[in-house]
């Protein structure tokens, strides 16, 4: 296999895998930017993957599957929003509880809501339809970059969503409010912005996108249902939020690099190349790079007295009458 073909294939695999990761990461960027840390991404993605798969399996409609995944994701994060925003509970503990609950519920329901013929189990079923790759003639023949034009609808959608998300956050009035409630909620409230309403909206938005990311796995990438099929992707998404310095424009860079690292493991194995670096070290690379990035960003921000990328009010609840 020549090098260009290898790289093209690697990029294609990266895009397929990175799609789900990008949705989840982008959603969490918005949530965290509003000052809410949601560690429930992993459980939310899994619930999204489950509900998307189930609905599409029984109705044969991908659109309905996606819709249900989005709604399920939003509902999961609604629990988090209610507990941490309205009832001002600890965001870390609540997020972990959501992940635990979501993971458990998804694995539990996966063995209970399947068709009778499969013993009520969803594992091992094939979908009647799935998101197929659609190629754009001519463009897909470009060496290497052609991979960008032979992807599923879910990936094409990202080409539009990512720039829009950046524009929304940095160029619109709503984006300004969003950043204000995450940076300086008290000032935002004084300016007449409803802090908690904003936080609700973006927590739900983040959950919806995590659900969508889960569905991108179960309806497109894998496409099937299995226990814990997200395999820690939700945690990588949280790492990627830091790596992208809470900027939607940089989310794609992070997911391409980290999706690439994961795909590289498989590609190298498939190509029969002897591994120089143990597979486990490739697997921990995303986390390692994230920690290093975080340390450098923090130190750098202090040296230059500049502004650190993480939203100042991240992880804290807000009530007008309390400090």
């Amino acid at each position, binding site marked *: 296999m020549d090098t260009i073909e290898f790289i093209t294939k690697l990029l294609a695999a990266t895009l397929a895998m990175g799609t789900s990761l990008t949705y989840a990461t982008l959603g969490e960027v918005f949530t965290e930017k509003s000052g809410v*840390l949601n*560690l429930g991404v992993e459980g939310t993605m899994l619930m999204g993957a489950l509900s998307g798969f189930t609905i599409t399996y029984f109705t044969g409609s991908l659109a309905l599957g996606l819709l249900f995944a989005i709604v399920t994701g939003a509902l999961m994060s609604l*629990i988090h929003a*209610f*507990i941490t925003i*309205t*009832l*001002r*509970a*600890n965001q*870390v*503990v*609540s997020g*972990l*509880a*959501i992940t*635990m*609950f*979501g*993971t*458990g*519920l998804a*694995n*539990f329901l996966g*063995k*209970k809501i399947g068709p009778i013929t499969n013993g009520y189990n969803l594992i091992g079923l094939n979908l009647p339809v799935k998101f197929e790759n659609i190629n754009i003639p001519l463009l897909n023949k470009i060496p290497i970059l052609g991979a960008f034009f032979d992807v599923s609808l879910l990936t094409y959608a990202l080409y539009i969503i990512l720039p829009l998300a950046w524009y929304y956050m940095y160029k619109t009035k709503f984006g300004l409010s969003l950043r204000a409630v995450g940076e300086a909620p008290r000032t935002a409230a004084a300016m007449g912005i409803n802090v908690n309403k904003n936080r609700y909206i973006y927590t739900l938005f983040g959950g919806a996108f995590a659900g969508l990311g889960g569905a991108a796995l179960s309806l497109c990438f894998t496409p099937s249902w299995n*226990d814990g099929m997200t395999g*820690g992707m939700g*945690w990588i998404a*949280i*790492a990627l939020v*830091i790596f992208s310095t809470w900027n939607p424009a940089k989310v794609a860079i992070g997911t391409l690099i980290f999706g690439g690292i994961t795909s590289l493991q498989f590609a190298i194995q498939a190509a029969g190349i002897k591994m120089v670096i*143990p597979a*486990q*070290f490739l*697997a*921990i690379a995303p*986390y*390692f790079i*994230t*920690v290093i990035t*975080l*340390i450098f960003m*923090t*130190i750098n921000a*202090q040296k230059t007295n500049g502004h650190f990328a*993480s939203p100042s009010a991240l*992880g804290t609840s807000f*009530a007008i*009458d*309390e400090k």
Partner: protein
Amino acid sequence: MRFVIEKRNQKSKRMQILVPILSLVISALLGAVVLLSCNANPLQTYSAIIQGAFGSPMKIQYTIIKMLPLLMCGLSVGIAFRLKFWNIGAEGQYVMGVIGITWVMQFWTWLPNVLVLPLALLMSFIFGGLWGGIPGVLKAKWKVDETLVTLMMNYIAIGIAEYLYISAWKAPMGNMGTVKYPEFAWIGKLWGKVHYGVILALILVFILYFLLYKTRWGFELNMIGKNSEAARCQGVSIKRNIVIAMIISGGIAGLGGGINSAAVTHRLTMGVNSGYGFTGILIAWMSGLNPIGSIFIALFLAALQTGSDALQITMKLPSAVSEVLQGLILLPLLAGNIFIDHKLRRIDKQVKEVK
């Protein structure tokens, strides 16, 4: 007419008792809804869980063994949380502890037999302590966010462990896992399956209780957690305390890994990251960071896990039901907690206008 949540002048004693009880009732009801939707009788299921956890001496022993790593992680997290240092890295610190003990057990063969176990346990404490100390130093020196660092370090530790038991330290036979520890270095049995590690953990609970509630150090930790500014004015070194607390916190999680390995698993292999560290966070939080309270919460959650495992056989329910129920117990409790120091007040339109 609408409601606002208002801060109480002081914590409500009545609510401190009522909230846990009410949330448990709500949890049981929510759990019943999930179970009913799957055609399982909730009462039967709950009694099967209790039977599965405490139904026979053997089951009680199993529950107690299961409690040990949970308790150790709960104690570990509890120390860090006192400082409002959000250490969610007990999982990784636990895994590092297992790596530490395995290193001594496998490679320090020149040691006299009697010294192997004590040194191995010490090494698990050191490994966990270092793994916890790193985010502590990062926070103290450069204010690097500890939640994110400890979270990421979990997965780095798990990756290192996988590398060790799949390739570097793999036993010559089999696909994965290190060789078993030498038998003379195992922790002995106390009652059936229950090992002496449990005694060790209970002693640790009382040492910690003493340190946290009866010494100046414990007082300093509390002061930093409550009001770091005031603590600084009193001359308490916040940086030094963060590093020390994190080394001890990580060390205890690591020691938990060490004890569990020396007594139960006897080697480093798949399943070393079974989520004890994450459950530990819930235990620390639910016990109000109290070491003695952690015993009961850890026992309760361990019983829930062993009891739910039994459901697979007795009720033909998937074992994931234990995670569902754990989540369902925690969420109402988290939600209800606000009413301990807050109250709901009804405001009528008129009053609002006057205000």
